């Protein structure tokens, strides 16, 4: 049982690290590219296509990461609770 609990704990930790990486990436990108200025209507004349794609999709991918991390942690937590309850 202890081994199982440890494994669930590792899943939770992995989910937390994934969520953290996603948030740090988002903040770093927004600061590096001054995305708030871009969204406020200040356009770069020559935004490279890769940068534009990243700007368009990063928010979406970060949200997906957060949802997946939350789900993984929730399932792990629920299983811990079930195992503890069943002794």
């Amino acid at each position, binding site marked *: 049982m202890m081994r199982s609990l440890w494994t669930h704990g590792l899943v939770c930790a992995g989910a937390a690290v994934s969520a953290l990486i996603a948030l740090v990436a*988002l903040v770093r990108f927004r600061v590096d590219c001054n995305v708030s200025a871009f969204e406020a209507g200040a356009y770069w004349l020559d935004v490279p296509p890769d940068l534009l794609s990243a700007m368009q999709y990063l928010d979406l991918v970060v949200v997906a990461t957060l949802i997946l991390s939350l789900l993984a942690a929730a399932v792990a937590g629920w299983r811990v609770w079930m195992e503890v309850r069943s002794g």
Partner: protein
Amino acid sequence: MLMPRLLWLVELGLLAAAVCSAALCGWLAGAPERAGPVHVEELVGVERRMGVWMGPEAELLESYHGLALMDMYLLAIVRSAEKPSLSWGHPLGVEEDPAVSVLDQGDGPRLTDPEALGLAAEDRRTAVEWSDFCYGTVDRWRMFVYRDPEGGDYVTYFQWTREP
């Protein structure tokens, strides 16, 4: 027996998806480094054609801002001191800028009298200086573009400031 295995599969599958998604975030966030500095050659080209704006630069301005080149307008150009990028701001309405409002009313300083606008003679840069200007240390400047009522041609003045 099947249920615990299925739950393990779901749990680890979700974790794997989250890890892959986080890795994708990291890769996307590295896009600015991969793209390198954003150059401003096109913008310099615009100014070199001072007087009459034609060609791709004018089309760019129209597509980005919906500007009509025959109208008087004001562009705010903002350049971050740390970032190698340069951006065009929204066209500001004439009524949003007191200096331009005065021009528009026709009873204030005239277009042909930049000193009366508070622009010193040395603030009027030539195209050659503009190139240095773009890559210099100026943080923010405004470019006023309007039609000279006497000459019927476009006149451009620059006003710039440094971040405190």
